């Protein structure tokens, strides 16, 4: 570090200063660069003297970037700092850089209140009591998710779209506590079992024999453990879904924290929010989510978003054997046949697809909207999830096992499932 290299392109900047200045510029642009990275960069520049732009670019990129998503920001900052022959020390006052992530808390605009706040509960969907959906899944009904008794019970049947502003906060608190559980599958890990029919576990048997001095060997059997399937939530945050997303986001956050779910939102493009929502402080999580996705309340590109999910995440393993929940009204800009095509791809990966459409609850609802009609044949369950009580159905649909007969005979006619 003391010898900054005799043939530097920038004459008087020493490696340490350069490294610190550049890392600071990156941090200002929202790239998380821990302080020890700057030291590592200085060290790296000692090994690879920055004689040329390329050497400097690759060295700093390899050291400072830690995920692919950071590359565009990195490239932009690199160009701004070095291609403009700017002294990194001067860039500290760079006002054009985007604000640091999480620095400024942006709140999402909420929908206008279309209901007098003293309105009585208007249960449009009265038949769905927690125990009445036995055809949805074979899971034990005593695990009903609405076990907690709430003083706000009058809110249970109110459609999310009709909540007043103060009730939304209350509802979010309630919804966050819902614990979603997925069906189980066999893991590769094993556990002890008393059943003789299971596999003999030599490792555990010998370990146990050590304890008794190696004499009396008791045979220990093991069987494969079960694990919950992965839960993936894709939430539509376009303008048409806006009244519902303010509550659905809390559902997403609750399941990311409580059930280890993966959460994505989409309108014109897809954004992964798992990382942002994984904070236990809900307000902070939602604020982080709001600043991570830029296209709230835009149009919907349903097919494009599902395609991008399948390509970038699903095929890599995220959707394989998972329960995928799509929260959307199916109103999309893209052609229905494209939606159908992408849903077909998704259904080949996923264990089950649950579609949550709050508009389903309308009395005369028919899934005729182009995107919805095209997607329906690929869904294993189609539920409304429009109110707190209706979320019971969602939970039951998520918990349900796939029927053992492999043929998936589905279509608009079983929309009542």
């Amino acid at each position, binding site marked *: 570090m003391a010898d900054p290299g005799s043939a530097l392109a920038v004459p008087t900047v020493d490696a340490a200063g350069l490294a610190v200045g550049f890392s600071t510029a990156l941090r200002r642009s929202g790239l998380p660069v821990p302080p020890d990275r700057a030291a590592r960069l200085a060290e790296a520049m000692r090994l690879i003297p920055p004689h040329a732009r390329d050497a400097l670019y690759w*060295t700093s990129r390899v050291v400072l970037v*830690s995920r692919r998503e950071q590359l565009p920001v990195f490239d932009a900052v690199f160009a701004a700092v070095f291609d403009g022959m700017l002294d990194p020390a001067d860039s500290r006052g760079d006002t054009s850089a985007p604000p640091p992530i999480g620095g400024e808390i942006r709140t999402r605009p909420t929908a206008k209140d279309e209901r007098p706040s003293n309105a009585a509960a208007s249960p449009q969907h009265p038949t769905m009591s927690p125990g009445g959906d036995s055809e949805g899944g074979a899971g034990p009904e005593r695990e009903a998710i609405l076990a907690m008794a709430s003083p706000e019970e009058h809110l249970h049947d109110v459609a999310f779209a009709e909540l007043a502003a103060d009730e939304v906060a209350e509802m979010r608190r309630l919804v966050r506590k819902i614990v979603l559980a997925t069906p189980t599958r066999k893991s590769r890990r094993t556990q002890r079992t008393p059943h003789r029919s299971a596999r003999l576990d030599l490792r555990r048997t010998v370990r146990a024999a050590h304890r008794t001095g190696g004499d009396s060997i008791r045979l220990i059997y093991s069987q494969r453990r079960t694990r919950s399937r992965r839960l993936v939530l894709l939430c539509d945050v376009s303008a048409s879904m806006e009244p519902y997303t303010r509550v659905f986001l809390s559902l997403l956050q609750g399941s990311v924290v409580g059930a280890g779910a993966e959460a994505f939102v989409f309108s014109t493009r897809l954004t992964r929010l798992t990382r942002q929502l994984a904070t236990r402080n809900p307000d902070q999580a939602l604020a982080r989510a709001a600043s991570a996705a830029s296209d709230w309340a835009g149009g919907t590109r349903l097919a494009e978003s599902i395609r991008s999910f399948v390509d970038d995440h699903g095929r890599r393993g995220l959707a394989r054997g998972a329960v995928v929940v799509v929260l959307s009204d199916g109103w999309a800009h893209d052609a229905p046949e494209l939606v159908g095509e992408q849903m077909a791809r998704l259904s080949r990966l996923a264990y089950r697809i649950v579609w949550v459409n709050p508009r389903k609850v309308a009395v005369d609802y028919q899934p005729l909207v182009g995107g919805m009609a095209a997607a329906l044949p690929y869904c294993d369950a189609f539920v409304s999830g429009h109110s707190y009580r209706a979320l019971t159905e969602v939970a039951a649909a998520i918990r349900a096992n796939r029927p053992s007969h492999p043929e998936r005979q589905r279509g608009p006619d079983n929309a009542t499932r």
Partner: protein
Amino acid sequence: MTGPARGGAEDDVLQRIPDVAALQAALDDVDYLVDPGLATALFLAVRLPQPILLEGEPGVGKTEAAKALARVLDTPLYRLQCYEGIDAGEALYEWNYPRQLLGIRLAEVRDARLDETELFGPEYLLRRPLLKAIEHTGPRPAVLLLDEIDRADAEFEAFTFELLAEAAVTIPELGTVQATHPPIVILTSNRTRDLHDALTRRCLYHWIDYPAPERIAEIVRRRVPSSAEPIALQAASAITRLRSLDMDKPPGIAEAIDWVSALTILGVERLDVRAVDQTWGTILKNRDDHDLALARGAGWLVGDEHG
């Protein structure tokens, strides 16, 4: 920041890889073609030394990079393929229980004395890749490849990194094994889940871009030396054209190599419509992709519409 045994690379390594250009040339010599970006990344991984996380589309040569680096350094490569539920017994070491049982039985039959220390001697230890890499006696550090680390559990990830940072393993029955030559660690990930911050913080990172047709052609020529001169570049361009379609499983470098091998065996000198029609199966492995490509036609694929 750096572990106890990591004061920079050893002299021997230093001589083999004095700078980025030398590493690039050396990798070239073992038939692994790299761009300056990947060369810089591997150079820093060896020289800082620091674990490096490689990401990129399937088939861009992430695993191959580790193998090539091991060849350049002339050291063994220890590869740990991660999967869900992998644990220390499969990654680090395990006692050979069946053999121990057999040893006890034999001792009984022969009426011999068998001490516990004998039963837990090195000959009853099954060494897994992590332990092998740490035990490696030199003269140069081994290359340790943790393939698809994202498939393992987060706990395993943390355990591995703790181990590598200390470059030492404690086996209760045998004692502590301290690495004399801490391994060069290369990780690959397919991004099925977010890796832990602690891991990304300790690693260098490089995203491998999909190479340009000329480079694919160069790679293919290296791998299929018997192929006719123009066909490698033609096939590479065709593959790149195919990748512009919206495919489920876009063909990669491996497919290009397979394809050119197939064409060479069939005795095809120049890529034409007939040759393509015969060999679709070597490049497209999905029905939908096949239909998509057929809709554009073999003529489009070989670039005929201009001629």
